């Protein structure tokens, strides 16, 4: 039987049957009878001093094991800036912050006791916006910033301010750029905080065994990150912390750093190491656990009259909320790719990460690139209008290409970036672009087309790495173990396909360990940054090469030839020039036995690893450095139908053309891009954390916090361009986040064309359109 390629073809996900039958198990599905339960009391104020906490009544309530407050532990956590007590101490900095934790035999007993805790607060002035945060003599969210440990070497705090990090990009000479510009445009924008709203709310269990082993069961994108954070922050030898992660019900970045895990650990510690379960309600998942960052920005763009961009000056303020978490790095990511996928020789960019008294933010799909994409793309629209030029033509003229330098002065190649020009051309065809962009229908509605391009790199640490281990079954099939968590996009299946392709065997003969157990699974940095296919795929390829080397070594003995004579395919090793002489994998997988009885070699175990190469931190003064191995580029289009009578709209069609390098699994790849596009529409049209004048979060449940619902989505079209990335497994680039990036700008462009007005804030709700178009009059 001839071998059939296992990539570029749609293969049913490895987790499909379990998921469609309800047999799939998530963290919360593993019940331990002995487990105690924790519930938290959260702050009703956004900024207040904690004067007194009376837990007496709660402690005497039924089934209560203990009640702990911020006094239980002095340790501050935070992977970049250690600024956050897992339970608030002395003061609260956002509405919903944990102020006390109750451990009880049963969850309802814990909840009942929570209601009995009395806290006295002294309200403080709130920092309710980026403007509040950066004004002169602003109230400080962290008045003792200088006492914090700062694990990240790339944090540049501005003294006595709410600015936790400042990132600069200085490329070329911006003054010269303005002098050679025929046209200069400026665009200001505001993107509020939002929620990840993963289906599975964050939840964890922790147990501390008598020998000191800390077992944590958690829904995370970063089991190894949790292990390292708990180990480092609480001084536990790393090998004693074991993190177990089964299937994860969505993450979108919200589970990329430890949050409830700290509470589970402290709760278990407080009850002598007994197992404690903690699970967020939806309301807590929105208001207590971290959210998506907010941002404000200003972009100034110059060009010659033939459309060549001369310079870019931009300033971004990233609202990290009350604690820094990964936001300083997202401020950096927004800066490093601030040009969008365009060649701009003169760039002057400042990106600031600021504290406010809002829900603290963490990583979110796009990792800062959503902000820079919106800013540059909206400025590009304004520039095209000013120049009287087709917006896609303007993008083509300036599209990044081989030999250009990124804002951080990394050298671009076709391999490390892809073919944006081709993406734009294909988008034009699919959108029927030349047929015109504005149609008035018989009903009086207006149909318009909006566009955007995007690019994104990983913004990963310079030492981010992955590993993979392959072990064999006696029947010649392979068990694969690697550290990517299955958060939804089908990564376990994608990697299985890469292994199958490399081993030239059927993917059904590749069995994957669906979970991650940090004591037995080789590390993968984190399941983030659209890097799993690339990093784990490369580790898997290297593990296959190791396994193949061993197969050839044993087969060469069995077949009495040299290893160089051997080829493999369909679970057998054969002599290249005489395929009738072969040995089956099953006969060598656990050692080769001579017919007289003696055996050699033992089980074949393939091991492989990958570490990103040549990444460099940014130079603080110029921003020169390298923040990712490769970029993924693409172009997106949106068609909307606008009703000018009542200012509502319908989403008709949305298109993404993306250079993926090589498609491993077409349906899964389309699914992940569509998912991103759908989230993009959520941000563009409805998702927003709304705070009142006291910084109290108003939409804390999905009654009022709205996401895109099934049936509201437009028709989605996803088209792939394949320009291989040379150093990627079979050429496949990262695609996990990218679908979200250009949708808000493309949508806003469509609305701007339909209404003839400029918009500076998303989400764009019908009320905002009404106000913008009519000035807010009937």
């Amino acid at each position, binding site marked *: 039987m001839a071998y059939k390629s296992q990539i570029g073809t749609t293969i049913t996900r490895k987790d499909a049957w379990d998921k469609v039958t309800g047999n799939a198990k998530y963290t919360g599905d593993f019940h331990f009878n002995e487990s105690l339960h924790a519930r938290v009391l959260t702050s009703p104020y956004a900024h207040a001093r904690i004067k007194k906490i009376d837990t007496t009544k709660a402690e005497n309530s039924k089934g209560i094991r203990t009640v702990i407050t911020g006094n239980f532990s002095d340790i501050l956590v935070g992977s970049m800036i250690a600024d956050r007590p897992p339970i608030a101490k002395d003061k609260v900095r956002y509405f919903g912050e944990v102020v006390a934790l109750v451990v009880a035999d049963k969850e*309802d007993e814990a*909840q009942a006791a929570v*209601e009995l805790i009395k806290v006295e607060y002294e309200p403080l002035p709130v920092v309710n916006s980026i403007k509040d945060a950066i004004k002169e003599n602003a109230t400080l969210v962290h008045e003792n910033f200088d006492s914090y440990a700062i694990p990240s070497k790339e944090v540049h705090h501005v003294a006595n301010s709410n600015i936790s990090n400042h990132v600069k990009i200085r490329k070329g000479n911006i003054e010269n750029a303005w002098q050679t510009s025929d046209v200069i445009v400026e665009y200001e924008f505001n993107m509020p905080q939002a929620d990840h709203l993963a289906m599975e709310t964050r939840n964890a269990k922790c147990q501390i065994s008598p020998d000191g082993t800390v077992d944590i069961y958690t829904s995370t994108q970063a089991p190894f990150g949790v292990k390292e954070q708990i180990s480092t922050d609480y001084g536990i030898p790393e090998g004693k912390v074991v993190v177990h992660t089964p299937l994860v019900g969505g993450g979108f970045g919200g589970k990329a750093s430890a949050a409830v895990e700290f509470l589970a650990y402290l709760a278990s510690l407080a009850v002598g190491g007994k197992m404690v379960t903690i699970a967020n309600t939806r309301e807590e998942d929105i208001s207590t656990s971290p959210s998506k960052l907010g941002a404000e920005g200003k972009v100034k763009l110059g060009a010659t009259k033939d459309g060549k961009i001369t310079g870019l000056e931009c300033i971004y303020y990233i609202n990290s909320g009350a604690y820094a978490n990964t936001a300083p790095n997202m401020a950096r990511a927004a800066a490093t790719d601030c040009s969008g996928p365009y060649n701009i020789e003169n760039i002057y960019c400042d990106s600031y990460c600021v504290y406010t008294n809002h829900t603290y933010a963490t990583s979110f799909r796009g990792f800062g690139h959503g902000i820079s994409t919106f800013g540059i793309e909206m400025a590009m629209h304004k520039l095209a209008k000013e120049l009287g030029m087709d917006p896609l033509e303007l993008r083509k003229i300036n599209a990044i290409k081989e030999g250009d330098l990124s804002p951080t002065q990394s050298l671009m190649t076709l391999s490390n970036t892809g073919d944006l020009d081709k993406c734009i051309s294909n988008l034009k065809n699919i959108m029927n672009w030349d047929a015109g962009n504005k149609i008035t229908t018989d009903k009086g509605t207006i149909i318009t087309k909006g566009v955007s391009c995007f690019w994104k790199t990983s913004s990963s640490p310079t030492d981010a790495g992955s590993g993979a281990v392959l072990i064999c079954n006696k029947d010649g099939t392979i068990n694969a173990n690697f550290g990517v968590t299955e958060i939804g996009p089908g990564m376990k299946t994608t990697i299985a396909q890469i292994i199958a392709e490399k081993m030239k065997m059927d993917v059904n003969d590749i069995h994957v360990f669906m979970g991650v157990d940090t004591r037995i699974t080789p590390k993968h940095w984190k399941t983030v940054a659209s890097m799993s296919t690339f990093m784990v795929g490369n580790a898997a390829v290297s593990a296959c090469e190791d396994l193949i080397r061993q197969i050839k070594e044993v087969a060469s003995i069995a077949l009495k030839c040299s290893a160089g004579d051997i080829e493999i395919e369909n679970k057998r090793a054969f002599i290249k020039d005489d395929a009738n002489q072969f040995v089956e994998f099953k006969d060598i997988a656990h050692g080769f036995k001579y017919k007289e009885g003696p055996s050699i070699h033992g089980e074949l175990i393939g091991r492989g690893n990958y570490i990103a190469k040549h990444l460099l931190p940014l130079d603080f003064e110029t921003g020169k450095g390298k923040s990712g191995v490769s970029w993924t580029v693409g172009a997106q289009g949106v068609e909307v139908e606008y009703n000018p009578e009542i200012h509502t709209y319908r989403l008709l069609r949305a298109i993404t053309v993306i250079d993926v390098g090589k498609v491993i699994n077409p349906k899964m790849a389309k699914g992940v891009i569509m998912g991103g596009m759908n989230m993009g529409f959520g941000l563009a049209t409805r998702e927003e954390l709304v705070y009142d004048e006291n910084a109290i979060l108003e*939409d804390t449940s999905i009654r*009022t916090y*709205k996401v895109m619902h099934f049936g*509201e989505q437009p028709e989605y079209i996803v088209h792939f361009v394949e320009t291989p990335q040379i150093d990627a497994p079979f050429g496949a680039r990262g695609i996990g986040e990218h679908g979200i990036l250009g949708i808000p700008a493309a949508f806003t462009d469509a609305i701007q064309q339909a209404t003839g007005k400029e918009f500076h804030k998303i989400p764009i*709700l019908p*009320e905002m359109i009404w106000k913008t178009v009519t000035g807010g009059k*009937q």
Partner: protein
Amino acid sequence: MIGFDFEYYKPNTVDQAVKLFNDLDSSGKAAIYYGGGSEFISMARVNTVYADAVIDIKEIEECNQYKMVGNDLVIGAGVTLTEIAEGDLFPPLTKAVKRIADHTMQGKITIGGNICGTIIYREAVLPFLVSDSRIVLANKYGQREELLRSIFDERLKLNKGEMVVKIIIPGEFLSLPYMHVKRTKNETIDYPLISMVALKNKGKIHMAFSGLGDYPFRSHNLEKFLNSDMFSKEEKIQQAVNSIENKINDSLSGSKEYKKFMLCNVLNTVLEDL
């Protein structure tokens, strides 16, 4: 997860139900009547409602009727929104209930629960306010029948321990020309920015609203302007909006001014098309 324990009762008759309420109340227990449970469960888990005991009325036959009795339509308090929509016996009611919550919840929410609930919109009441619908209530002293809108002021004015048994819609209102309009912030399924039911009865428009303010209402002042012969359409709309100006407020769904804009648009549609 609900942080308190409560007793659960499922009586078979109205008499048993009201007696239970009375007995529980006498022994110092906070009791509530319970329909589909969607509101009680979702609010109890965030501790914004409390009860020592709930009295489930869904097994009571009288509360489960949904049929014509003579010329009139009778709807028991325990009938779900899905059942109402599927039976489709009072079209404006069908339209209104199909836009309350989502399909899953419509299978749980009862008509009595929606009208008596804590969530302020109570959109199912609108068709009853614009018709001469009657409501049957019961407590330990027995049953009474009232014109529904006469005891609906912001919400249903119930005496202590009183339960809704059923609603009766007189036959002559079942097939009148009507309109239902619901506009939201941006979604099909959401609380109303404005929810409106209008009937045309003997040439006169009756109209009730939810979403504009803190409670559903029917305004006779507004109807007076709309039904007047003295004004142009534009004047009618302006007068009508002015007449209920103080009932409209800012909310998460939209600002007062925006609601007024939508109201004008809705009134215009009604005047044009009904």
